[in-house]
């Protein structure tokens, strides 16, 4: 018996291990949601999903908030809503987003109740971020008025403000990217802001861009690094080998790695076309990697310390959103939406394609990676005006929800980095938040997103243009014929 038992035990162990391995394989890979929204897409992996401790918020429900009170003429680069940011503030789930009406809105993420608003001097296209400073939660936002604001997230009062460029009458516009918070040293926290300002006067002929580091406590500048003369993406902060690094892209195709302590450029990689959104960062088995997407449609994995290319993958069309990295069990995966209509899932370490999900329009947004009820999914927005949810493991479509038509019908609308979706878990319910280009900020509980979404209907301008085209054409045709017949009658027959 004893001998038989000793024989049976190893086989049981092997069997148990095999069952465990199969179970682990079958269990969907879970996504570790970030804990504090300190970067444009929550963390350096751009997961854009957060679990919020919000006992003071009401039960989460579908809601919408209209922010299109006044419709401006479209200009390349503008958006209606910025990508939102989420945080738990004094027990409430708070959503903050900038709007083209120059205002920052703070809403209860569970119910859509307006908590406070903060007016800036220009449209707010950059996503705000949250960070805890002492005992209060700060909301950090950059506006096109050249100012970086630190606002008390509990009541909307300004804590400090800093201008990236001193005012002078000839100063033209400014484009500030989403700030991010990181450490200049081991512990000191700083706000990093990428900016692009220009001057209208010929005498000054100023077009300059760079990254500015500000002290989180009082907004005092720590360092400034100029990086040419064009639009920059938001930076992401990551710590490698004890030192903070910033990674960002630019419209002239360069990807920069800066030392977060001094602002010194550690390396620069030139892409074939604009890098419009922040890269993603993660630590692979072979070392830290930066994953970028460019308007040429190329996704690249770059060695974070040196900038050397580890892999590249070409999608069929331009990429304007950021890649998002799923780091959990198993190999890391990169998800990136492209204008070729596909969301591509790649092995983030090697760039090997795993699956791709087809939408009905080009995908312009960065994905948000969420875990809902044990099932992991990626949320992404496309030019079919839909929010698409796909299973992270297989690329299976889960649902699509209509999120509204753009306020403009403009050919070059792909020049704008439209708001990307974010997700938050509030009182055990996952919600997706979408600042649509129809002017409405929508909250969709993931379980009922399709039902909660508005119904797809034809554009009223489509119907209005029907008589505008048909009636003049018909009148003209009849008129031309009548004139010709009268002319022919007037000619005497020989």
């Amino acid at each position, binding site marked *: 018996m004893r001998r038989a038992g000793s024989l049976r035990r190893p086989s049981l162990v092997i069997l148990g291990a095999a069952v465990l391995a199969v179970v682990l394989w079958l269990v969907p890979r879970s996504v570790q949601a970030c804990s504090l929204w300190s970067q444009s897409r929550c963390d350096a992996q751009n997961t854009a999903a957060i679990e919020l401790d919000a006992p003071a918020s009401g039960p989460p429900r579908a809601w919408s908030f209209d922010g299109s009170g006044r419709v401006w003429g479209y200009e390349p680069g503008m958006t209606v809503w910025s990508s939102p940011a989420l945080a738990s503030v004094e027990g409430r789930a708070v959503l903050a987003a900038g709007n083209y009406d120059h205002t920052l809105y703070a809403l209860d993420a569970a119910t859509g109740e307006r908590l406070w608003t903060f007016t800036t001097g220009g449209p707010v296209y950059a996503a705000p971020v949250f960070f805890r400073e002492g005992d209060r939660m700060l909301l950090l936002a950059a506006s096109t008025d050249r100012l970086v604001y630190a606002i008390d997230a509990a009541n909307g009062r300004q804590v400090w403000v800093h201008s990236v460029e001193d005012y002078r009458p000839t100063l033209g516009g400014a484009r500030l990217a989403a700030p991010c918070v990181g450490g200049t040293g081991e512990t000191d926290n700083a706000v990093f802001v990428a900016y692009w300002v220009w001057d209208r006067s010929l005498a000054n002929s100023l077009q300059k861009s760079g990254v500015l580091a500000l002290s989180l406590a009082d907004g005092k500048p720590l360092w400034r690094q100029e990086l040419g003369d064009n639009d920059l993406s938001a930076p992401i902060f990551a710590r490698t080998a004890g030192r903070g690094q910033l990674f960002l892209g630019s419209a002239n195709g360069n990807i920069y790695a800066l030392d977060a302590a001094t602002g010194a450029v550690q390396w620069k990689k030139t892409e074939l076309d604009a890098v419009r959104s922040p890269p993603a960062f993660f630590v692979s088995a072979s070392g830290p990697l930066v994953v970028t997407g460019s308007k040429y449609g190329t996704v690249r994995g770059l060695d974070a310390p040196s900038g050397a290319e580890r892999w590249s993958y070409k999608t069929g069309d331009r990429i304007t959103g950021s890649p998002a990295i799923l780091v959990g069990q198993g190999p890391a995966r990169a998800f990136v939406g492209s204008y070729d209509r596909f969301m591509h899932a790649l092995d983030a370490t090697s760039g090997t394609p795993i699956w791709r999900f087809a939408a009905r329009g080009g995908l312009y947004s960065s994905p948000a990676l969420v875990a809902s009820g044990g099932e992991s999914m990626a949320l992404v927005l496309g030019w079919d005006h839909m929010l698409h949810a796909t299973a992270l493991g297989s690329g299976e479509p889960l649902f699509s929800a209509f999120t509204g038509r753009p306020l403009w019908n403009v050919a070059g609308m792909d020049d704008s980095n439209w708001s990307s979706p974010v997700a938050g878990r509030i009182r055990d319910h996952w919600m997706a938040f979408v600042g649509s280009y129809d002017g409405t900020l929508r909250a969709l509980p993931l379980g009922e997103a399709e039902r909660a979404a508005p119904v797809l209907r034809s554009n009223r301008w489509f119907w209005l243009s029907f008589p505008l085209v048909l009636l003049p054409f018909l009148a*003209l045709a009849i008129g031309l014929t009548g004139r010709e017949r009268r002319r022919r009658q007037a000619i005497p027959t020989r």
Partner: protein
Amino acid sequence: MQPERSPLSKVFDVPFLSLDGTSVEMASIIFLFLVVIAISGVTRRRQLVRRFVQAGSFLVFFCVVYSCLGVFGMIRNGLYGMTLLGSAYSESFYWLALPVVIISVTLLHGTVFCGWICPTGTVQDLAGWLRKRFPRRKERLTRGKLIGLAGFVAGFLVLLIWLGSKKQLLIEDSSVQWAAMLILLCYLVLAGAIDDLPSRKLRLFSLAAIFFTAVSHLVVTSPVHFAFTARDDPASALTTMVILVSALFILRPWCRYLCPWGYLMGFLHRFSRLRIQQAPGRCTECGVCNTTCDVAAVKNGVIRLDQCQFCYSCVDHCPNGGLRVVDMWTQQGEKSVVPAGKAEDPA
């Protein structure tokens, strides 16, 4: 996993021949040049070669390349490309290349794009070929057939309204309004309510409308646009279908009444190097050219430059060699092909 849907039957899902690894398509431009060189060298069995070129262009532009040859798109793309000059060169090249090549070809070689390459024209020629197989006995339709046709037009408009109420149609889908316009115009011409020739001035109106939408940053997709893009475009497909059906009743109706690009080509034709002209003293006013021209651009040997599509049909079918291609720069004419025994002494 959702099955991958390729845009119609594109053979390649990345640019076939790209500019320096970009999405800028070079194959379409090279193909256009090759076709024009080939066309300029053809002197024998020209109509057969034209059909082959049309079929080849159709296949290349529908199955291989992504560059848009849509008649609205080229106007809009050209204007958009001009705004990018000086800031984004590769993108500017992408938008401007095809319109500039086609305009240059028109100035050098006449409107061969319309007659030999344009996919919208090829679609109409396909229907026209069917129509010629079953010629009508009378030019005017009988009352019963007109009522039937009116029912068809009304049915189409009702279908359009139903489609718009069920499906999201945007301003980009306004090409269906051009489709509705075309089907109404064809009906009115067949019913005798409006005349063919005066109605052709509508092309200018169409050009103005597309120009206005383009400078207003409004996108109206072209009839055959659905074949050039990776996205679904049911409105464009529906409009193409309407053009196909309309061409069963009137030859090349889109080119005659509504094509804005055709108007532009016709305008440029007045300044082009090559044009078709009457050979002095050879025309006997037999009327063959009147019947062979699909767009009725020639009457008794007199060519209407703004309507001519340079298909050479009149040149090839004239029994007396009464029409010839003239180089306006050197004033030298191509030798007319005169069937044996039919040439008349001009003296």
